[in-house]
C-alpha cells in the first residue's frame, strides 16, 4: 500500500468502519469479563447468620400465619438519594437509560447490524430517536453546568471528568450532526461518530466508565446498608 493510500480519507474511514469496530467490541467484552472476574476475586461470600428469638434477643418472632411485613416503597424512595437530590437523580436516570437504549433502537444502527449479520433489534421512528438524542445532549449539558458552576462538584473535579463527559456525549452530538447533515462535512462527522463510539466502548472497562459494570455488581451483591436486594457477598 502506498503511503498516500494509508493517509487517504477512504482508508481512515474503512479502518474505523471495519476492523476497528471488531477491535472495539472485543476489547469491551473482554475487558468487561475481566472486571467481572476481578470483582468476584476481590469479594467473597458471607456466612449467613440466623437469629432465633430467645430470652436475650431483642427480636420478637412473627406468628407463623402472619402476613410478611410490607415495605413502604414511597417512603423508601423519599428517604433515598431520590429524596435528597431529586433533580440530579431524575436527570442522571434519564441520561443513563437513554445512553444505553437509544443506540440499541436507532434505525441507522439496526440497518448496519442487518447488513452485517442479518439480525437486528426493532427500530424506533427516526424523529423520536432524534428527539431522544437531543435529550441526552441536554442532560450532558446539565452535567457540564454542575461541573463548572457547583462548588461542591468543582472541589473534586479533574481534567479527566471533562474529558469523559465529552467522550460520553460525543457519539450523540456527532450522531445528531450526522443525521441532520449540518455544520460539518458529513463524511467527517460520521467517521468521528463511529470513532467516538468505539473509543467510548473501549474505555468502559478501564476508566471511570467502569461504574457501568460495578454499580450493578456491587449494589446488588454486596451486603451493606445501601445494598439493593439481599446481598450475600462482602469485600
Amino acid at each position, binding site marked *: 500500500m502506498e503511503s498516500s493510500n494509508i493517509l487517504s480519507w477512504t482508508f481512515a474511514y474503512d479502518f474505523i468502519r471495519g476492523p476497528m469496530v471488531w477491535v472495539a467490541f472485543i476489547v469491551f467484552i473482554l475487558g468487561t469479563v475481566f472486571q467481572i472476574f476481578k470483582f468476584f476475586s476481590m469479594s467473597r461470600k458471607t456466612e449467613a447468620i440466623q437469629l432465633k428469638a430467645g430470652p436475650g*434477643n431483642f427480636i420478637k418472632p412473627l406468628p407463623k400465619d402472619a402476613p410478611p411485613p410490607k415495605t413502604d416503597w414511597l417512603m423508601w424512595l423519599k428517604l433515598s438519594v431520590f429524596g435528597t437530590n431529586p433533580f440530579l437523580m431524575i436527570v442522571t436516570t434519564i441520561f443513563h437509560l437513554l445512553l444505553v437504549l437509544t443506540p440499541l433502537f436507532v434505525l441507522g444502527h439496526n440497518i448496519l447490524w442487518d447488513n452485517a449479520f442479518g439480525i437486528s433489534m426493532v427500530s424506533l421512528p427516526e424523529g423520536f430517536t432524534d428527539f431522544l438524542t437531543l435529550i441526552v445532549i441536554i442532560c450532558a449539558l446539565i452535567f457540564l453546568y454542575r461541573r463548572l458552576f457547583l462548588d461542591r462538584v468543582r472541589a473534586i473535579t479533574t481534567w479527566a471528568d471533562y474529558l469523559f463527559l465529552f467522550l460520553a456525549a460525543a457519539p450523540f452530538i456527532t450522531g445528531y450532526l450526522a443525521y441532520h447533515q449540518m455544520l460539518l462535512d458529513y463524511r467527517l462527522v460520521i467517521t468521528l461518530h463511529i470513532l467516538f463510539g468505539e473509543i467510548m466502548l473501549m474505555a468502559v472497562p478501564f476508566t471511570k466508565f467502569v461504574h457501568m459494570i460495578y454499580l450493578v455488581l456491587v449494589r446488588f451483591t454486596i451486603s451493606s446498608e445501601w445494598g439493593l436486594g439481599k446481598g450475600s457477598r462482602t469485600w
Partner: protein
Amino acid sequence: MVKAKRKPIEEIKEAISGYKNILTVGCGGCVSVCLAGGQREVNALNAELKVHLAKDNSDKAISGYTIERQCNEQFIEELKATADQYDCILSMACGAGVQNMAQHFPGIPVHPAVNTVSIGIDKALGMYEEKCRACGHCVLGYTGGICPVTRCSKGLFNGPCGGTNDGNCEISAEVPCAWNDIYLRLKAQNRLEDIMKVHPPMEWQNQTPRTIVQEPYEKRYRA
C-alpha cells in the same frame, strides 16, 4: 462512650508472665477518647513494661499495634497476617473488643489491659463519669434526664426509698439522692406528674447476652 481504666502494671505483668512474644493492641475507638487504650497509651504501656522487664532481666519481646476498632471484624482483618508470630495478645480495648479479638484469634491467649467501667460522659480532661448501665429500658424522659438505675444506690426504678437524708443517700452524706435530684429537676420543668408514672421493672438483671437487631434489618436474620 464506653469508659475504661488501665489495669495496674503489676496485674498486667502477672498476665503476660508466661509468654515470650507479646503484642499490645490498642483501639482507636472509645478507649482512645477516654485516654485509656489508644496508640499513645499502647506506647506508654510498652515503655513501662520494658522498664520493668529490663529490671527482671526478662527476654520477653513486646510489640505494639493500634487498630481503629476492636469491636468490628473489618478492622481486625489487618492483624490476621501477622498475629501468628505472637504467643499472647494484650488488648487495650473494652471488654467487647477483647472478646472479639479472642474470638478471631482463638489459638492465641488474649489478655485485657484495661478494666471496662461504664458508659459515661467526658466530665473534664482525664475525668469520666458513669451515666448509663445499659439496662435496655430507658425511662430518662420521665426522670428529668437523671438515671435512677445508675445514680440510685439501690437502683430503684420507681421512686425513692425512705432513707433520703437532707437530699443525700442514706449510705453517705457525699452521695446525693438520685430521686431527690429527679424530683427537683422535674419540679423546675413543671412536670412533677411524670414522677408518678410507674414503670415495670427493667429486664437487665439476671439476663442472657442481649442481641439487638435494628428494625429495617430484622428480615435478614429471621430463622
